[in-house]
């Protein structure tokens, strides 16, 4: 029974209530970090961990948090974990930290984290809240990495910086510069949302 609860939560956060596709949260980072897979992976792992630990902490503290300052406390806890990630990267993975630059600090502003704190961690036990944060991060990661695969191949002709398209794709200037830029993610996210909504409606038998 309890195992089912975790599986159901995973399914919900990855498929039926995916943060990007259904909740439309965390769109800023979707536009910004998805033109190279390596940056996308690191960023999404960071978001997943910060979401999980923030939800866990907030769920633990829930009984003592006065409602008036609830959101301030949420932001404080989220910032705490984000700065921890930043400090760890700067000290032990300086190259990654250099590559991601300002984006690590911007994890704080990712709406998914506060969304889960408000919608889930407030009303649930710490362990399942941790799991919920992790699976939300995972749902976010799947969509972003998917976008990054398209964008990196079409923009640079590479996958994880390994060339996969013939050289004359990029040499002839045939690469899609739009894919390098943030606006392309708008189009791609829209297409992905369209497809996923259509599929889900077919499944539930909805017609509108």
């Amino acid at each position, binding site marked *: 029974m309890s195992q089912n609860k975790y599986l159901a939560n995973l399914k919900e956060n990855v498929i039926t209530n995916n943060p990007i596709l259904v909740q439309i949260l965390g769109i800023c980072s979707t536009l910004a970090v998805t033109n190279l897979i390596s940056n996308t992976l690191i960023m999404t792992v960071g978001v997943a961990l910060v979401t999980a630990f923030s939800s866990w902490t907030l769920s633990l503290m829930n009984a003592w948090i006065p409602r008036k300052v609830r959101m301030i406390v949420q932001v*404080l*806890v989220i910032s705490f974990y984000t700065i921890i990630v930043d400090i*760890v990267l700067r000290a032990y993975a300086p190259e990654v930290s250099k590559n991601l630059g300002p984006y690590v600090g911007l994890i704080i502003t990712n709406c998914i984290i506060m969304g889960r704190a408000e919608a889930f961690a407030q009303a649930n036990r710490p362990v399942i809240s941790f799991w919920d944060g992790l699976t939300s991060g995972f749902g976010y990661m799947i969509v972003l990495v998917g976008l990054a695969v398209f964008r990196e191949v079409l923009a640079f002709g590479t996958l994880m910086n390994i060339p996969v398209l013939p050289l004359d794709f*990029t040499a002839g200037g045939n690469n899609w510069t739009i894919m*390098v830029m943030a606006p392309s993610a708008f189009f791609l996210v829209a297409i992905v949302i369209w497809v996923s909504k259509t599929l889900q409606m077919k499944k539930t038998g909805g017609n509108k």
Partner: protein
Amino acid sequence: MNKDSVLYTVLFSLGVTFLLVLPLSVANELTKDKVKENQQVASALSILQAMAIPADKNDAKSVIATFDALDKFRLEGDKLVTVTTSEVREAERLKRPYDPLYFRSKSGDLATWAGAFTGQGLWGNLVLAVGFDGLISKFTGVQVIAHVETPGLGARVAEPWFLNQFLGQQVPSSGALAFVNGSGAGDSDKENDTVDGVTGATITTKGFVATVNSAVAQMKQLTGGVQ
């Protein structure tokens, strides 16, 4: 105590802030030296790589030792004067690391020169280490010491495929390299006067090439007086 009372709210907020900020301060304090050392090694490594001097990036001690063995100068008027190690350590902490410094490595009659040059990227300063052979006829390499460009766009000027274009690249007789829209794999022709730009990062690439060109002009003037 009533959870919604003003007193409880204030005390709770103070307490929770203290509890969260304390470990952060401790973590910052504990990693401060490590972060400083990382920056120092990264800057020193950029200079060494720009001069094509082999260095193992995982061996911090040997990087610093190799770096400390270089001759180091700064400009006073139009003369180069030797700087001390403590002045170099001071420069590492600046916003534009090493900017006023020049480096020379000499084996026999062959010298390699490098300097740190600051230019403008899209968002801010771009500090480059630019290395030359003794005659300033070829680049030995270009490395990025510091930048604040956009990850995935301008920040790609710090990637190997872009920087490798400068390994052994001939210094144009006109003194000015130009960048072109290229294959994305980098320009492997070392005799021409062009390098490939970064797609989607025209302004960063422009600033980068302008900085390299100003480095050429400065180094020609400088070493003309020394050798």
